[in-house]
């Protein structure tokens, strides 16, 4: 089975869905989720294959690299393909303004995002990154309000400029090495590019990927977009799409930029991101903006973990990412019916007991209170940072502890406020779509052992420069 199906099935579905909707609205309502179920089944089948036979590499068009475009279905990429499809299924647009258009864009997002996770070619990464960006622009602006348009335009200007800079980075790499295949680049780059040139290319690529990965200082769009977009879309972007961008950064870090100063650059950027995000969340008065800033902080933590680019660090990043993927979308969809300002949530538990209880549970997991999975994710991160040794990593570990206190400082008072005093306005709020995510979180409490083992296995299967994927002829230049 070809990994390219993971791109082809949802994207074709996205093209068919509008015509199907015109023929039979009922069929199109059923077809969308069905395509995602097929997608999940495909991911599961490819996963089995990848676990047994190792990463599957194909070259589209049958031409070998550098002419053909390489795809690799390894466990790391497939894990995120599956997570993206499942999250899209949970947050599937059923009601609201023009659900059919939103459904088409969601399928496009799933297809492009899956391609992003599996692509092993630098230029293809750029194309799919742009496609993912376009799909998410469309989703953000789907209600068509002025505020959404303004937020999307800000996102677009930042994103398009970043992507142009990333393309410049790709041009630099191509000019120096003459290839775009990640596996080839991993072998060629150390000999072909000088250190300053490599770091410049990494900085340019990070300028592009950092926009979606919510890295400082490219994340100014985050509070506006997550504040203006529908909670469903905010959950999808914060939960899955931002992590796909970080996944690409990790791919670059373990192949082209292994053993360069790039890891230190990412560590520095991640540390500032964590600090800026969590401090802004502490000060935020608008609930959605608070969640948006907290998502910046959590992605910073994930980037911190990835900057330790050994299996322990990667496993920690995956644990943090999967935990955030469950918690943040659940929080976004849950507070949709709540008043937006922080002070107005006083005594909310009286009218919405389930919603308030779920908020407390999710907030505690986000802070990292045992035995919730958030505790375990942060513990693995600390182990990874301290296990690496060296001043910068020890400082990062201290930062993680400080940040946990800051997180507790804004989430716990809010949770207490829900249960104290008389409600200003009596709101009724449902948990609704948060339920499967919360159940998955609770299931993870019980299954933490097997999950950890599986993540370690995924992390140690990530191909490094030494175990580069396709076997290359010995005539490649630039081997030191």
């Amino acid at each position, binding site marked *: 089975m070809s990994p390219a199906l993971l791109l082809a099935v949802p994207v074709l579905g996205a093209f068919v869905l509008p015509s199907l909707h015109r023929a039979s609205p009922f069929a199109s309502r059923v077809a969308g989720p069905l395509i995602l179920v097929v997608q999940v089944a495909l991911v599961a089948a490819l996963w089995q294959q990848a676990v047994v036979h190792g990463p599957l590499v194909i070259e589209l068009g049958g031409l070998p690299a550098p002419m053909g475009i390489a795809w690799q279905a390894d466990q790391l990429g497939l894990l995120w393909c599956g997570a993206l499809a499942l999250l899209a299924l949970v947050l599937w647009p059923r009601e609201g303004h023009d659900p059919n258009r939103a459904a088409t864009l969601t399928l496009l997002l799933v297809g492009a995002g899956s391609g992003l996770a599996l692509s092993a070619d630098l230029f293809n990464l*750029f194309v799919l990154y*742009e496609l993912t960006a376009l799909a998410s622009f469309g989703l953000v602006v789907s209600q068509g*309000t*002025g505020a959404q348009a303004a937020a999307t*335009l800000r996102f677009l*200007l930042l994103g398009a400029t970043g992507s142009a800079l990333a393309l*410049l980075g790709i*041009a630099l790499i191509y000019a120096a090495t003459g290839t775009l295949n990640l596996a080839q680049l991993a072998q060629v780059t150390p000999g072909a590019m000088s250190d300053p040139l490599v770091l410049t290319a990494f900085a340019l690529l990070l300028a592009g990927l950092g926009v979606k990965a919510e890295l400082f200082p490219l994340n100014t769009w985050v509070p506006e977009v997550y504040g203006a977009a529908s909670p469903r879309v905010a959950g999808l972007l914060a939960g899955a799409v931002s992590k796909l961008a970080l996944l690409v950064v990790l791919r670059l870090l373990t192949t082209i930029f292994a053993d360069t100063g790039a890891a230190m650059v990412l560590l520095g950027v991640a540390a500032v991101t964590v600090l800026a995000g969590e401090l802004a969340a502490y000060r935020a008065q608008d609930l959605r903006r608070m969640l948006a800033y907290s998502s910046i902080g959590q992605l910073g933590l994930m980037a911190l973990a990835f900057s330790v680019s050994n299996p322990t660090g990667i496993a920690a990043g995956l644990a943090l990412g999967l935990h955030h993927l469950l918690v943040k979308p659940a929080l976004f969809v849950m507070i949709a019916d709540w008043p937006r300002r922080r002070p107005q949530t006083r005594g909310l538990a009286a009218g919405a007991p389930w919603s308030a209880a779920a908020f407390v549970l999710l907030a505690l997991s986000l802070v990292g209170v045992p035995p919730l999975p958030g505790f375990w994710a942060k513990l693995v991160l600390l182990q990874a940072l301290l296990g690496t040794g060296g001043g910068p990593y020890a400082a990062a570990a201290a930062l993680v502890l400080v940040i946990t206190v800051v997180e507790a400082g804004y989430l716990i008072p809010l949770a207490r406020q829900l249960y104290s005093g008389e409600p200003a306005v009596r709101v009724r709020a449902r948990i609704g779509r948060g339920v499967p995510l919360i159940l998955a979180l609770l299931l993870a409490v019980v299954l933490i052992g097997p999950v950890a083992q599986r993540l370690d296995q995924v992390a140690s299967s990530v191909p490094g420069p030494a175990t580069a994927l396709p076997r290359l002829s010995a005539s490649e230049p630039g081997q030191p």
Partner: protein
Amino acid sequence: MTSHSDLLGIMFYGAAVALLLIGLYTMLTRRHLIRVLLGLTLVEAGVNLALVAAGFRPEAAAPILGPGAAPAMVDPVPQALILTAIVIGVGILAFALSLVVRIHRTYGSVDLQVIGERLASDPDGTGSEIRRRAP
């Protein structure tokens, strides 16, 4: 002749960097949304030129196979890449312009500062509050 083609390479890269910087400067200093988008297209043009320059080889012909022995050709891969990059750029730009139209309909301006002010006094994000207060 080699110094001549070296000069050509430097000119390519110099023009690319100049376009990039002019574009960035425009994006950062203009408040008119259409001008900001023009800045973005300049940035993209600069990057595309850099990509073409990456495939430049001195004394080489255009990469089109003809009858007879093939002469030395410039690298075709970057040229194929920028075709894709241009198409993506056009798509993004068209989408951005449609957003500008939407913003103009809601807030009655394409000036970033005015939009920011009106956005702040627009609680539900639909512009209804502003239209209600407008004379």
